[in-house]
């Protein structure tokens, strides 16, 4: 395993679906270890790069759940391209806070937010074909594709992400003990 790691830099892709970017921030909270990480991996598609389509990758990190059709396409693209797919954070694992809208009626919300809200002029419900189709519920990503690992937390800490990734890169089974494993 060591030899393989030495010979080839692994490729890492990340994306944010219906999330708040907090998990990406936690990823950057590895701080100066980021500079060590890029010695060992190359970034593929990620909000940090200008690669817009995911190529063949070893590791994919997914933040956020599924709230529209676009999210599904991106998630499927990542599943096709990434050998190991990781759900990172509460939103990806179980829908997280965005899923709070699951008990609301979309029609009613739209009416309110875009038509009768205070201070609104030319109220209308956005409906351009360029806007991806929203789903009536927000879903965790494992309902759509197979997921290899789940890291809970909102967000997991930078230390937890670092431990997880270095375990994986070194060929160990990733393990998060206390206090790295938390759900808040």
């Amino acid at each position, binding site marked *: 395993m060591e030899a393989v790691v030495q010979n080839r830099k692994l490729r890492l892709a990340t994306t*944010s679906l219906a999330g*708040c970017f*907090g*998990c990406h*921030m*936690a990823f*950057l*909270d590895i*701080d*100066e270890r*980021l*500079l060590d990480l*890029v010695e060992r991996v190359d*970034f593929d598609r990620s*909000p*940090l*790069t*200008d*690669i*817009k389509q995911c190529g063949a990758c070893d590791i994919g990190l997914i933040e956020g759940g599924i*709230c529209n*059709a*676009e999210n*599904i396409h991106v998630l499927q693209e990542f599943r096709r391209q990434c050998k190991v797919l990781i759900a990172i954070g509460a939103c990806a694992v179980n829908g997280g*806070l965005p899923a709070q*809208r699951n*008990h*609301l009626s*979309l*029609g009613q*919300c*739209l*009416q*309110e*937010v*875009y038509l009768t*809200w*205070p*201070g*609104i*002029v*030319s109220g*209308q*419900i*956005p409906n351009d074909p*360029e*806007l*991806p*189709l*929203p*789903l*009536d*519920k927000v879903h965790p990503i494992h*309902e*759509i594709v*197979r997921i290899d690992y789940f890291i809970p937390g*909102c*967000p997991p800490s*930078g230390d937890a992400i670092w431990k997880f990734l270095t375990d994986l890169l070194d060929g160990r089974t990733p393990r998060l003990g206390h206090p790295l494993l938390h759900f*808040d």
Partner: protein
Amino acid sequence: MASEAFALETAAAEAGTLRRVAIDPVSRVEGHGKVTLLLDANDEVQQVRLHIVEFRGFEKFIQGRPYWEVPVMVQRLCGICPVSHHLAAAKALDHVVGAEKLPASAEKLRRLMHYGQILQSHALHFFHLSSPDLLFGFASDAGRRNIVGVAAAYPEVAKQGVLLRKFGQEVIRLTAGKRVHGTGAIPGGVNRALSPAERDGLLADIDQIVDWSRAAVHIVKRLHAADPPLYDSFGTFRSNILSLVGADGALDFYDGRLRARDADGKILVDGFAVENYQQLIHEEVKPWSYMKFPFLAALGPRDGWYKVGPLARVQNCDSIATPLAEGERREFIDHGQGRLIHAPLAYHWARMIEMLHAAETIKDLLHDDDLSGSELSCSGTRRHEGVGVIEAPRGTLIHHYRVDDDDLVTMCNLIVSTTHNNQPMNEAIRRVARRYLNGRQLSEGLLNHIEVAIRAFDPCLSCATHALGKMPLQLELQDAAGQVIARMRSAS
């Protein structure tokens, strides 16, 4: 001002006769957005739009929640500037619990948290997201245009960026309890003080942080000096500006009153009390974006739109209270030769001046004994309504809540920073498209010019998508086995 505005918003020709080009997703920004261009047979640009493609529904599902949950919940709107939402909500709810004036310790701890947030967010935006365009060139090799490329070419710059952000995040962790989505502010105050040991830990690094912030201002100034025509004209358009200004007219990120100027710098509104924001600002809805378009109600949607954020703030205030940043502000104002600077790329310069101010302010606060005080919260006569306004890293952030007798939220209205810049960002990319893309074979590098203009505003498209949306079409969501697990409801 309105003469050229809104050109290219909607193509005159039938959409079907035009060729569509999309930049999807817009990268090296926070959140989800895309740009579409429509071109005619001669490759002339006919339409350009920045679409905000996601929806959340925060304002709706916060209804019915207990008010004391809100400062923690709303942070999940945005993981880049959670502290801004945390504090804007807490400030709004201060009024609900009747805390009209917080104890000095509480206010200063909140300020420390907020200035840590400004520092980390501005560092992240400049170094991790935008610097590759500015250091390598807008059309440089796409594979290198990222923080990894910067680390290879300018290791010292990348390292300073990473450590500046780290310091801001540590300030947040020590005041809020967590780096992302902390819990430090509560309605009526804060729940923890800074211990002397924690303070000394931060003090050990602060001089270095001030120095690096100063160096960052110099990097941007050098970039401007190297190519003034580019930096002054790229995507430039004229508009009004809006921000909070402190009681003494100074730059203040935490509190103040609203001030707006027209494109010539003439004051339109001043000393405007934030709780009356609904009289000042109205919002327009357009069918092609989930993000609304705010404008100054008195001027109407065509003339009333405005810029917010660093470029607005640094020129809207009368002074900056810390000496190094004030010196830089004067130099910046001089660059405008008596006129307001409207160039989008000057946002970077103003942003780095603000980062320097944040670093200096953190240093001052760390020397203030109130930070380890024990009176951390207060309360008074209960009210049913509160408005909290703050200058988030990206601009003016407004939170407004109504709470009933059972402590449950009955109404929530949010106007987030990036939403104010909706029209400005659209305007900037239309200027860029006309100037650089018209009639040309579109390459990746040319398209990146559009993104460079968007990035200058440091948009947080995640924050900006809090409203719900839906379209009159059918969609099925199937699981891996082909089982239908969700169906989008058809239009009501």
